[in-house]
């Protein structure tokens, strides 16, 4: 009963599909208003989207520029630190060298007696040689570039103890026995054998010069 009543009322009301009497709206104007509102909403939506994108882009640029600036400012400091560290005074090293030279001096005085006895059997000691290039001898004091080992000390003592005459004699003797020197002695004039060696790659071109500049005492000994 109630449903029938409801249905009757709904049908009656839904049959009213016309505008009420006395009300005549301008549908054209209303349609235009609707269209303009839609456009405005679209524009506002797009504007909002664009502004947010712009703000995000600005923030990104600021962030990147900040990172670049930080990286640029931090670089020179590290460079300065790197450049200053090697230029620091090497006093401790000098001290060490002095200490080592002192040690060397004491060692020489102590071992003088031993060396005298060993003077005869020098050739056996020389086989345990260390390059003499590392030690520079001057009149006043000795400057040691690298701290000397026991082997170097022994060899240096040998060099000091040997007299000039003996060394000259020995040199003369060794030069007589050195075959390589015999080939390379005339540096300016190239023999057939020397040029053949260059071609084969057995000898370097500046070998003769190096050999002439060196103090060739020990070298000759080794060759011997």
């Amino acid at each position, binding site marked *: 009963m109630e449903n*029938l009543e409801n249905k*009757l*009322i*709904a049908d009656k*009301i*839904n049959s009213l599909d016309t505008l*009420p009497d006395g009300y005549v*709206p301008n549908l054209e104007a209303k349609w235009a208003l609707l269209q303009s509102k*839609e456009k405005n909403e679209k524009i506002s939506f797009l504007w909002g989207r664009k502004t947010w994108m712009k703000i995000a882009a600005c923030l990104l640029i600021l962030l990147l520029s900040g990172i670049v600036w930080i990286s640029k400012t931090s670089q020179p400091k590290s460079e300065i630190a790197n450049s200053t560290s090697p230029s620091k005074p090497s006093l401790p090293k000098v001290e060490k060298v002095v200490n080592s030279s002192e040690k060397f001096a004491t060692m020489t005085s102590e071992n003088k007696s031993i060396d005298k006895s060993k003077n005869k059997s020098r050739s056996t000691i020389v086989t345990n040689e260390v390059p003499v290039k590392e030690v520079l001898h001057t009149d006043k004091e000795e400057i040691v570039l690298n701290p000397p080992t026991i082997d170097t000390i022994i060899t240096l003592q040998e060099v000091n103890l040997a007299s000039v005459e003996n060394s000259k004699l020995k040199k003369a003797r060794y030069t007589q026995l050195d075959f390589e020197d015999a080939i390379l002695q005339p540096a300016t004039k190239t023999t057939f054998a020397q040029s053949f060696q260059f071609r084969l790659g057995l000898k370097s071109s500046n070998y003769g010069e190096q050999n002439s500049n060196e103090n060739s005492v020990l070298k000759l000994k080794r060759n011997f």
Partner: protein
Amino acid sequence: MTRFDEKFVHLCIGGDKKAQKQLFERVYPPMFRICMRYVSQHADAEDCLMLGFMKVFQNISKFNYTGDHSLFIWIRKIVVNESLMLIRQKQNLMFVVDDQSMDVPMQAEIINAIEAEELNYHIMKLPTGYRTVFNLNVIEGYDHKEIASLLNISEVTSRTQLAKAKSKLRVMISQTTKSYGEPGE
């Protein structure tokens, strides 16, 4: 209920402005009537209708065609929701408790005898609370659970409001029929 064929509906969905304008012109009068039943003032009804049509044309691409009446029903739902929103905004939704309302039975003959315009007029004369629940239940076909969720009220309130709305309408209709039926008036 206005019918729209599939071709016309697809034109509207596709964004054809001519078809959309035609739809607007055809749907405007019945929708205005619906709005008027809820808000009972011309200006408010126009506002509701414009907001409703804006939503319709913004979301028409999402509409699925299921029958000739489907588009009309979809637009009607949107317009009803807009009307309810306006009522909530204006806080017009007052549920009057009237103890003097009597349960007067309404006969089908009386309903058939009364004109549609007159019935509509009586419905619009009801208090806002009664009218809203009556419209939602009797004309739109919502049950009390749906009405309760839409208006944020209890189901019991919805039932009592409907009963009181019906009884008041019966009284109003009976008074008019009496006045019509009385000799010499």
